[in-house]
């Protein structure tokens, strides 16, 4: 039925089977859209957020998803700017993931604000001192860039290529992809940072407040590093997942190793920086503002265990695993380490958003707890479903993994030697 849309020479399941796979996600998406509509029409009273818990599940989701989506910019950066050509094998997939994550996050943000119709005020009356302004500007720009980067992948579709203009445009656009990669790197570098700054600048919330380096609080840089660290890990996971689900080899065996190495390296840097930052904050920043560091961790359930989990269990451990060539080579270790790294960053975002708001600031404040309402969860699920759907379609009809075709058969070694003269189109 849709055969002529599928790349020649790659195997895809039958249309019926594909529909079967889509059904649950479509249903989930429908439910999510319903709850989102409820929020948009009836207002944010549909959520369990309140004046004290001004942010909830959604902001946590946005921060996490955007961190995971960082693979797109970081891989692009390594491939196009640092010319690590092996990453060509996953760049398309990375771009799709990035697009999904960012567009999802932006949609949720639109639901999260009280007056979505005024979202553009930020562009109109920007307060350049606000981290949120930086975030808004960078994310919207970067989303555009991602969309443009996604275009060639779409236009490469077997049927669309036959339309001359599309073929030509794809060809030309791809020649200029560096520029976009560069701009994308610049943008995501900034908004990943400003997302961290978002909480680091809250001088009223000593739990989140960090001292600044240059213009930005330390969280600015921590977020960048952690995003760069977890991006490749997430690509690693998704690629593996897709390979398992589609029962195919999609990338050459050395690619996951490379991703793991990069991820491990960044993660190690992150853990180091985070440790230093935490020590400075606990012993200087916070006490100077009248808040003893220890008291943050005496509000159940957020004991010191959360700090330990964040830095050691989900930080140091995966970093070491990914850095050791022997463990890295083993798929089991590699993947579990990658998963841990992702959890670590998610936990970090959770601490920054939820724990910050849960902790009391005034001496007569109670400790606050919050559970998302089903509308919030529904909207969250919508993003997940949306992501799966977009990725599934992209995987079926576009070439997310260029090596897939060559990997259909075990190829004799001499074919893999690098030629002296490469006719690289990139």
């Amino acid at each position, binding site marked *: 039925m849709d055969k002529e849309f599928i790349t020649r020479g790659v195997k895809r399941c039958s249309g019926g089977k594909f529909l079967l796979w889509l059904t649950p996600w479509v249903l989930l998406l429908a439910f999510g859209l319903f709850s989102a509509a409820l929020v948009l029409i009836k207002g944010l009273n549909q959520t369990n957020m309140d004046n004290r818990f001004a942010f909830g599940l959604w902001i946590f989701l946005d921060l996490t998803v955007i961190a995971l989506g960082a693979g797109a910019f970081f891989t692009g950066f390594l491939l196009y700017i640092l010319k690590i050509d092996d990453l060509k094998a996953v760049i398309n997939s990375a771009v799709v993931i990035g697009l999904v994550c960012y567009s999802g996050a932006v949609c949720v943000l639109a639901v999260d604000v009280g*007056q979505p*119709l*005024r979202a*553009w*005020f930020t562009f*109109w009356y920007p307060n350049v001192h606000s981290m949120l302004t930086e975030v808004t500007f960078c994310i919207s720009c970067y989303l555009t860039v991602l969309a443009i980067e996604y275009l060639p992948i779409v236009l490469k579709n077997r049927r669309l290529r036959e339309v001359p203009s599309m073929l030509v445009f794809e060809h030309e656009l791809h020649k200029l992809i560096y520029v976009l990669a560069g701009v994308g790197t610049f943008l995501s570098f900034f908004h990943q940072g400003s997302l961290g700054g978002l909480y680091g600048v809250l001088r009223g919330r000593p739990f989140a407040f960090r001292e600044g380096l240059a213009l930005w609080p330390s969280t600015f840089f921590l977020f960048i590093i952690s995003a760069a660290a977890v991006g490749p890990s997430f690509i690693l996971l998704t690629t593996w997942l897709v390979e398992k689900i589609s029962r195919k080899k999609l990338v050459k065996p050395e690619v996951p190793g490379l991703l793991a190495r990069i991820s491990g390296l960044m993660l190690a840097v992150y853990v180091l920086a985070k440790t230093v930052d935490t020590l400075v904050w606990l012993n200087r920043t916070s006490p100077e503002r009248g808040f003893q560091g220890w008291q943050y961790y005496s509000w159940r359930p957020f004991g010191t265990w959360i700090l330990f989990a964040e830095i050691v269990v989900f930080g140091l451990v995966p970093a070491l695993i990914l850095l050791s060539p022997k463990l890295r080579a083993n798929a089991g270790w590699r993947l579990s380490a990658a998963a841990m790294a992702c959890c670590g960053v998610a936990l970090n975002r959770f601490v920054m958003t939820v724990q910050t708001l849960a902790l009391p600031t005034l001496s007569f404040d109670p400790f606050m707890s919050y559970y998302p309402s089903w509308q919030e969860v529904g909207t969250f699920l919508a993003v997940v479903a949306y992501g799966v759907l977009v990725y599934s379609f992209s995987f079926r009809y576009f070439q997310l993994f260029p090596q897939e075709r060559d990997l259909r058969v075990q190829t004799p070694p001499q074919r893999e030697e690098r030629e002296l003269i490469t006719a690289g189109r990139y």
Partner: protein
Amino acid sequence: MTTRRDLFKITGGAAVGALLTPAPWRMITDGALWSENWPGIPRPARGEIRAKFTNCTLCPAGCAMKARCVGDQPISLAGVAGHPLSHGALCPFGIAGHHLPYHPERLLSGAVEDAAAAIKKGIGEGGRIAVFDTRPGRTASWTYRRAMASLPGGLYLRPQAALNGNAVDLSAARTVLSFGVPLLDGWGTPGNVIQARGNFRLIQVEAIESRTAAMADLWLPTNAGEERAMASIILNGGMDHIARELENGPVLVLGPEDWPEIVELNRKYGALGRTIVSRRDAPVPDTWKDAAPEMEWADAAEGSIRVLLIDETAPGAYVPWHSLETKLSRDAVVVAFTATRDGYARHAQFSIPTAVFPEALDDIPAAVDSPAGVFRLSTSLVPPAAGTIDPAMFIARLAGIDAASALRDRAGAICRSARGNVFHYADSKSTPMKEMKADAFWKSLNEGACWIDDLDPKAPAPKLVARAATRASNVSLVETCGAGLVSPLFSKLHEESHVRLARHEIALNPAGGFHDGERVALQTDCGRIAMTVLLDPSIPPGSIQAATGADVLDLCGGVTGAKVVRI
């Protein structure tokens, strides 16, 4: 010849060109302005801002009020600075009083004709008719008394008089010993109490750390129901440090007046005549002298009343229904004149809707903490709602007497007495009564003024009488929602914060085993009411704090051993 391509080129060029002019950006800004004026949000009415003066009738204090009006519509109320009685203070109830006419639960319709017919029938059958007046001493009260006098077997009933009709002179007190009296939480005239507060030490004997206890100089926590025992201990000099405190006179002892201990303490520490004084009430026309006598409801014969007319338009002391009921005959007709469904309307066959503050024109007698008699009007700032009737007029018509000009007549009588001074709110000046003409007096009364009597030099020594005392209940009631209506904005104090208990909310000690927000029942011999639990460690175990409200008063008034049970 132009092709479609040219057309595109032109449009595109025009668009790009336009972007370079301020026009599109201006349009966006205007779009913003539009989105800033959301549809569906009420627009406040505009108009000339002017000030009007009146007095609050929401409680017997009758604080002076300055109303900020747009045209004739009051939009906010404030105290009148420098007022000799209320000293410019208003309680939250008063501050939001101007919302009452628009209260969603206000009673606005009733079978007036049927009520009149039923009353006539009752009288025709030769039964006793009685008026129960929750705030005696008003001119309306005099109208009732006159009406009852002209009706065969007519009775005028009133709640028990505080301090046996005597007044408190707080300014004279140096030490105040209070047994659970909410002295700093709406007792007497709040402004007057706060004014005097600096001059006396307050010793509060109370089981719960109420607002008054929290602010008292000394709080003596007792177990619930043991206040009276504490009183007798103090009376017998059982507690030296208290005794020593009480050496610092003049002393005032406040508490449930039916306790002999209170009377004794006041006598022992020489309060009578110094901090508790007898008050001369505002004069009335001589023609009213033949009015029916005031009778405390308790003194009426059991089962004697065939027709009971209850006027609760001016909230005062609420007598629990189960007590009042005993005075009714079997086939009694009960008519409640009220603006709320929560009061006696729950028990009456007929509820007649009346005007509420600030609709009604009424006068306010002196509060318990005013040694001098006073006369002031609560003028109607907004016209009474359609379908409401004036109970005084209704009852006067019933008895065939003319009371249309009662207020004015009384003002005349006061003017003739040539006693005291008139305090004008607009310029906070006061002029001696003797220098004023009746018309001028009446005019200034309506524009916001207060007549304050001279202190009677040869006033008789005040007498306090103890009655058969009821035991103290373990439910401490706090004025929260008022007996009658309360502004919808009080949600700020209940739902949107926990400053005050909401109606049907009780505060318990966490040790009680109940959890926050749990639905329970407050139960006494008189029945049970569903309540919501609010945990508060400052409530001692065994004690219950509940908000006043007619139904709660019916349940707990004068009974003991209330308990909280799970539903």
